[in-house]
């Protein structure tokens, strides 16, 4: 391809070079021809005119000179003659000048011009002779020379004739030149025609060459290319088809591989799930194959390989002989295998396997191969064992239970209504409780055994047997004369079981207890009424005592004071002290009495239980106490619930407890009092915790008693009735109070309130007589 290209370009270059050279040569020839034609034409064009003009001008000048001469001859004055002479000299110069021009332009022979010149010279010399004659004063002679037919005109005619010759030649020459020019034109045309013909020829040749050198190879190349393309396309198509086929094959292979893997995986999963392993035994070669699950099942290493001996040794020694015999028989007789064996596993673990297999025969009918599956059936064995044990237990229970137990079959009438039932089985307790003997009643119906059986029994049991609804009832059997507590349930449709107890005795005892209880309740009511009355009396007594104690006390205090005033300045220091002591004593006693009265009041008033928000009560109380405490106390108030109780009394409880907490933290730098509540066992338990003086748990019992104090009056003021009040109020609400503490380690006071209002409703005087 490359060599061809080179050749082609060289050819092209050579061809184009040749065309260029030829074109240049032809152009040059044409150019020269044109040049010549042009010159010829120029000459042709200019020659007659130049010649004519020169001749005519010269002729005119000659003519003018003749006129000049005549004038000269006619004129007298010297000055005029001089002017004519000058003009004549100019004309003469013109003649000479045009003769010189003719020399240059005239194409004819020079002799023609020379002839004219010599004639002219002759003419001039005649004129000069005349001049000389004139000068010599021979005027008439001079004039004669110039009259027509004189010397001068004759000479002039001669000169003019010579000139005409030149004109004639010029005309003839012009014709000739025209002809020549026509010839040249014809020649030029011919040459041009030749030139164009040559150009055309060359173009044609060049085109042909070009066609041959470029187009044809190109066309061939194109054809070749197309052919090759077609070929390539064909090849590509084939290749694509091939690729498609291969892809399909690959996909199929992959799919099959996937399926195989899946199958394998599935098989593996199935084996794992079923705790099973597969085996295959070539009887001829003795070659045994196990799946890895089987190795695992038998507790053997896969690397140890599968052998019949290995299998046999995996079987429990007690089963080994049987396994060997069975397998041998199967291999010889070609019968299918299905046996269960225990395994001998490391660690003494007891497992069971089932071996199932079949035998393949060769064309001769001889067993050649066995294959099958080993399945771990331990769980099934265990379940079977459990069922057996359960049945055993049930049987024991059945035999030994104290309740009577019987299974029955329902008998229905034509309308499908329960009509009777048959005894299927009864336990020993049944015999004891009913006095019926098992042997006498099994297979018989209840109406056969006890014709007096009430319809209600049959109907109730019928419902159990038909609907599956359980039955629990107490019923009296008139037929047996006993009261029974009965449970009945359906075993299967139409059959039911009955367990029962003879409750005749228990019933009797219950009735007795009920009677006793009724009496007891009556007594309790009476006693309670008594106690309430006594309590009331006691309260009234307390109130009355407190009330009556106040009057004398006031008197003592009052008169002591009056005494002090009456004595005035006369009273000694000591006496004044005594009076002070009396004053203080009475004051304190008054206080005690007030509290005692308060306490008595607390015990008496009716409770008006309402829903009370403990949180709000605590917050109000804390606000009051914070105002009066006169120091910073850190209050921690938890979430407190609403309770049911007497709002006024509960407020009193909180006031007492919180006042106590404030009081006993007085000596602490940072008092901290915490109120919290929790719900426990149907009670709301409220705790008031402080970090104050605390108390000795030894004396905890005294805390809630009237006028009992664990601290001296000097240490902490108080009368010792607040906590007694708390206890009384909470007790009346059906709650409890208790406390925990340590000396110097703070104290916690708890009270509980029932979440369902269980507060007492105590009769008060104004509501008296409501009790009957």
């Amino acid at each position, binding site marked *: 391809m490359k060599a061809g290209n080179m050749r082609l370009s060289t050819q092209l270059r050579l061809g184009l070079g040749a065309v260029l050279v030829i074109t240049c040569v032809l152009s040059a020839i044409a150019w020269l021809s044109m040049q010549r034609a042009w010159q010829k034409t120029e000459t042709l064009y200019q020659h007659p005119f130049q010649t004519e003009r020169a001749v005519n001008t010269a002729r005119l000048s000659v003519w003018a000179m003749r006129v000049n001469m005549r004038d000269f001859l006619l004129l007298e004055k010297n000055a005029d003659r001089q002017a004519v002479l000058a003009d004549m000299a100019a004309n003469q110069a013109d003649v000479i000048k045009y003769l010189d021009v003719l020399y240059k332009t005239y194409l004819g022979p020079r002799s023609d011009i020379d002839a004219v010149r010599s004639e002219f010279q002759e003419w001039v010399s005649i004129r000069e002779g005349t001049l000389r004659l004139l000068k010599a004063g021979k005027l008439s002679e001079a004039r004669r020379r110039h009259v027509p037919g004189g010397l001068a005109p004759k000479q002039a005619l001669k000169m003019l004739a010579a000139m005409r010759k030149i004109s004639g030649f010029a005309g003839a020459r012009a014709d000739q030149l025209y002809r020549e020019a026509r010839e040249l034109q014809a020649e030029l045309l011919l040459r041009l025609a030749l030139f164009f013909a040559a150009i055309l020829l060359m173009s044609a040749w060049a085109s042909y060459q070009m066609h041959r050198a470029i187009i044809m190879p190109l066309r061939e190349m194109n054809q070749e290319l197309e052919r090759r393309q077609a070929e390539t396309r064909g090849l590509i198509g084939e290749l694509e088809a091939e690729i498609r086929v291969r892809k399909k094959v690959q996909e199929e292979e992959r799919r099959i591989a996937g399926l195989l893997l899946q199958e394998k995986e599935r098989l593996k999963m199935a084996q794992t799930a079923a705790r099973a392993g597969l085996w295959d035994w070539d009887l001829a070669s003795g070659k045994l194959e196990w799946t890895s699950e089987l190795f695992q099942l038998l507790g053997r290493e896969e690397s140890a390989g599968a052998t019949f001996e290995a299998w046999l040794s995996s079987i429990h020694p007690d089963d080994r002989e049987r396994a060997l015999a069975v397998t041998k028989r199967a291999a010889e007789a070609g019968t299918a295998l299905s046996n269960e064996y225990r395994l001998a596993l490391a660690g003494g673990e007891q497992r069971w396997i089932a071996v199932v297999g079949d035998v393949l025969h060769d064309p001769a009918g001889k067993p050649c191969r066995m294959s099958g599956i080993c399945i771990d059936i331990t769980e099934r064995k265990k379940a079977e064992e459990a069922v057996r044990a359960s049945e055993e237990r049930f049987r024991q229970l059945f035999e030994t239970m104290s309740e009577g137990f019987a299974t029955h079959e329902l008998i229905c009438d034509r309308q499908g209504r329960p009509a009777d039932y048959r005894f299927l089985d009864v336990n020993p307790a049944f015999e004891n409780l009913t006095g019926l003997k098992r042997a006498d009643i099994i297979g018989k119906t209840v109406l056969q055994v006890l014709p007096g059986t009430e319809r209600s029994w049959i109907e109730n049991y019928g419902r159990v047997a038909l609907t599956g609804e359980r039955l629990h009832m107490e019923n009296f059997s008139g037929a047996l004369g006993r009261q029974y507590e009965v449970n009945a349930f359906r075993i299967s449709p139409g059959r039911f079981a009955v367990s029962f107890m003879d409750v005749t005795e228990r019933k009797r005892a219950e009735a007795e207890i009920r009677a006793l209880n009724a009496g007891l309740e009556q007594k309790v009511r009476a006693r309670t009424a008594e106690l309430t009355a006594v309590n009331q009396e006691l309260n009234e007594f307390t109130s009355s005592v407190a009330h009556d104690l106040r009057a004398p*006390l006031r*008197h003592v205090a009052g008169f002591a004071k009056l005494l002090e005033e009456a004595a005035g300045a006369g009273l000694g220091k000591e006496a004044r002290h005594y009076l002070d002591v009396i004053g203080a004593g009475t004051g304190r006693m008054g206080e005690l009495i007030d509290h005692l009265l308060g306490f008595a009041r607390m015990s008496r008033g009716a409770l008006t239980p309402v829903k009370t928000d403990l949180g709000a009560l605590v917050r109000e109380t804390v606000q009051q106490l914070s105002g009066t405490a006169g120091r910073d106390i850190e209050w921690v108030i938890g979430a407190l619930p609403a309770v049911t109780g007497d709002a006024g009394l509960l407020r009193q409880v909180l006031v007492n407890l919180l006042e106590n907490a404030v009081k006993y933290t007085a000596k602490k730098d940072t008092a901290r009092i915490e109120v919290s509540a929790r719900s426990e066992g149907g009670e709301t338990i409220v705790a008031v915790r402080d970090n104050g003086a605390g108390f000795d748990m030894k004396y905890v019992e005294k805390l809630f008693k009237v006028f009992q104090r664990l601290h001296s009056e000097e240490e902490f003021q108080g009368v010792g009735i607040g906590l007694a009040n708390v206890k009384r109020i909470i007790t009346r609400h059906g709650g409890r109070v208790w406390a925990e503490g340590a000396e110097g380690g703070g104290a916690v006071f708890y009270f509980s309130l029932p979440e369902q209002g269980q507060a007492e409703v105590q009769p008060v005087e104004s509501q008296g007589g409501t009790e009957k």
Partner: protein
Amino acid sequence: MKLKHILLAEDNSNDIELTLAAFKASNLANPVDVVRDGAEALDYLYTRGKYAGRADGNPVVVLVDIKMPKVDGLEVLRQIKADARLALTPVVVLTSSREESDLVRSYKSGANAFVVKPVNFEEFSKTIRQMAIFWALINEAPPEP
């Protein structure tokens, strides 16, 4: 204008003495008449028996103790308030201790005030003084019937 009387109904002589001492200390000019039980109080108010012919009109205030022989303070109160001629006379129940039932009954019967006698004499004295000043001086007495 003639000063109106104050009636004190009190059975205990010690209390009478102490009350009078307190009145004295209060520098109150109104005369204090003392009766020793409820019956006598009623006689005084109705100007009968021992008090027949008494012409100083209704007292400016009646101070009555609850526990008294014969007719007790609450009964006296009830009778006063039930009688059109006496009903407007202010009655103050004086008692040794604040007993809720007494309090309720007193007010229900129309008591104008209920005052507990403090044990401490200074406080007692102060209480009596304030009460006397209020009823005798500050309070406008009802018009005579």
